[in-house]
């Protein structure tokens, strides 16, 4: 797990065209996306995430992502829906290189991250990409405050005082200031996930990836986490890519909803477009089965 992580594409055997020129791509993406999102475009805005023809194969055989194309704009909230096994997590994990893409291109702020990257460049990239996991993944040996501080002190090299002040501020934002000195094991699942969000936000990344952040929670604890995410979307101006099954949340908060199945993006649009008037039969079926 530690070993064998090589940050480059083995080869491009898959017949994928080269990444588009930045200006050209931005124009094309804007053209394509402007009717599909509630995002307010700035003039000459460039997407912050561009996924082109992304392919991911496990063990050289199971093709999990066949051809994923997606652009995400700065400050946009994108909710990704889809049945289990459709490759949502894999796509998310490719974006911060927890998985190495097999082929295709991912560009973060117009910089290609697929291809040869030094470990240092990967670390740098990840500072800018927060991630919130389904299973929280808090560090059990650290307190809530310690969890929020450690990235700041060890990666951003902030002083302990600065990091602590920031940690307390972020814990307050998620309503857990009074739990700052608790260890994860002493917190409920919902509280743990809110600490995990505070931990990601404290790094001030441009983009935060959420992988089913409420799926592991008891129903009564879901609301608190969603509230925190909603506040982040509305007041934080944070770019968020959220894999979720919370339709209510997606409808209310998302600028765009993306439906994935079988390793491709099947359909995308504003929440109203996708929920009220799905264009694909599979989307409609999926939404029907959820409700």
């Amino acid at each position, binding site marked *: *797990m530690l070993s064998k992580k090589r940050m480059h594409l083995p080869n491009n055997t898959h017949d994928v065209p080269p990444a588009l020129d930045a200006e050209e791509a931005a124009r094309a993406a804007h053209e394509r996306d402007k009717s599909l999102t509630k995002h307010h475009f700035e003039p000459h805005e460039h997407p912050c995430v561009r996924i082109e023809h992304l392919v991911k194969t496990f063990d050289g055989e199971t093709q999990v992502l066949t051809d994923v194309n997606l652009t995400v704009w700065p400050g946009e909230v994108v909710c990704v829906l889809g049945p289990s096994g459709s490759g949502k997590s894999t796509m998310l994990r490719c974006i911060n290189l927890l998985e190495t893409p097999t082929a295709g291109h991912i560009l973060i702020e117009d910089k290609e991250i697929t291809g040869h990257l030094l470990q240092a460049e990967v*670390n740098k990239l*990840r500072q800018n*990409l927060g991630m919130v*996991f389904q299973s929280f993944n808090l*560090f059990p040996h650290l307190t809530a405050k310690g969890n929020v501080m*450690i990235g700041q002190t060890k990666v951003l090299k902030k002083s302990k005082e600065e990091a602590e002040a920031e940690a307390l501020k972020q814990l307050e934002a998620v309503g857990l200031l009074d739990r700052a000195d608790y260890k994860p*094991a002493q917190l409920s699942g919902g509280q743990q996930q809110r600490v995990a969000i505070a931990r990601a936000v404290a790094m001030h990344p441009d983009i935060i990836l959420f992988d089913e952040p409420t799926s592991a929670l008891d129903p009564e604890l879901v609301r608190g986490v969603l509230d925190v995410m909603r506040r982040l979307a509305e007041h934080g101006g944070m770019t968020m890519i959220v894999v979720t099954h919370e339709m209510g949340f997606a409808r209310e908060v998302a600028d765009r909803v993306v439906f994935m199945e079988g390793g491709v993006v099947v359909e995308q649009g504003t929440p109203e477009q996708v929920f009220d008037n799905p264009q694909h039969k599979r989307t409609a079926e999926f939404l029907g089965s959820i409700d």
Partner: protein
Amino acid sequence: MDKTSIRMGARSVVAAFVLALAFALACALPSGAFALTTGSATAKPNEDGGSSVIGGLPTRLTWEATADKGDSVESVELVLPEGGSFDSSTTKITTLKGLERSKVEGEATPQGNKLTVKFSEPLVDGYLIRLEITDMHFPSEGGSVVVGGTYVSNGETKQLQDSAPIETIPNTLVQGIVNWLDHQPWVQAWNSNQFLGMFFKPQLIVTSLFSLLPGWFVCLGIVIASYPFAVVLGLVFALMKVSRFKLLRAIAIVYINVLRGTPLFLQIYIVFFGLPMMNINIDNVILGIIVMAVNSSAYLAEIFRAGIESIPAGQYEAASSLGMGHLQTMVNIILPQTVRRVIPTVTSDFITAFKDTSLLSSVGVMELMMFSKNLTSITGNMTPYVTAGIFYLIVTLPLIKVVTVIEKRIARSERGSGPRPKAKTAVAKEEVADAV
């Protein structure tokens, strides 16, 4: 302290814990030209004293002197240092003329630390005086005791030549207890039971507790000195074994498997007999520390490796997604958690390592096992071994308890109901209860 002196110390049993070398030595003194020459002064070891003379307890002192030219010895007065006593002693006086017993008789009068012996007729050149004084006491503080005094020759009081020093050991609490035990009827009854007397002889338990102490310290010293090295080495090899570099992994695997796959006994033999053959001579105890450290490191490496691998992948991913590098992740996230997890296993390994120091007795390291073996061979009694067992248990039982307690605590905290920090408000407490 060199090896031989330790060994001799052990043989002299009780002496071992006080001085490590306590002997009743009698050295021939150069004979003076014109005086009563103190030939020798020796003391017989007391009962229960092993081979040592213990102060404050009844002992027999043998004192000899020869009369020289011009002497006409009428009386002799022996003087012990302050604290010594001839009171209640009995003295057997022998005078020899050449090799034959002479008919000169004497009369001894003990008084405190002085003993006056008056002879029936003056002893002249060629006479030998032998005084065997039983039930006398040396000073209970122990130390080198010199028997001095005066003699009267031709009506003139002269200084006696000091005797060679007699090494005595302090009459400690132990000797007091042993002495007391000797006279207890229940102890005599206890010891008359063959089993109890052979394995649990009270006097020997008391003596052993004190005389095995240095061996116990050697065991503790070896394991305490070796373990930090073992931990560091173990960690290095554990990290090598989970490394992404094949060569490092291969080296670690060979190291760990060879050391774990062969008996410690064999490793001890190879090192202790092999190094001297290559003209490398290292102190036994240091060598013991090295062997124990290397051997434990292989076991610790496996413990650490298992600990590292038991940390869920999510921890690496969470650290990575914060932008931490491999080393940062290991140092800040993985190892602190590993340490917590392996503490019980490492403690168990420490217990094993502590017990395994006993194997070093096979190559002459003076540790607990060796001390008890020596004491057993002197006394012909198993009690010293039993006492050694007590010494091992003094260390291992509390550690076994520690392991159990930590294991319980870990199990509890993994269930998520670990001890909570003091809640700041009563409300906060309720909320947690609700949330959980």
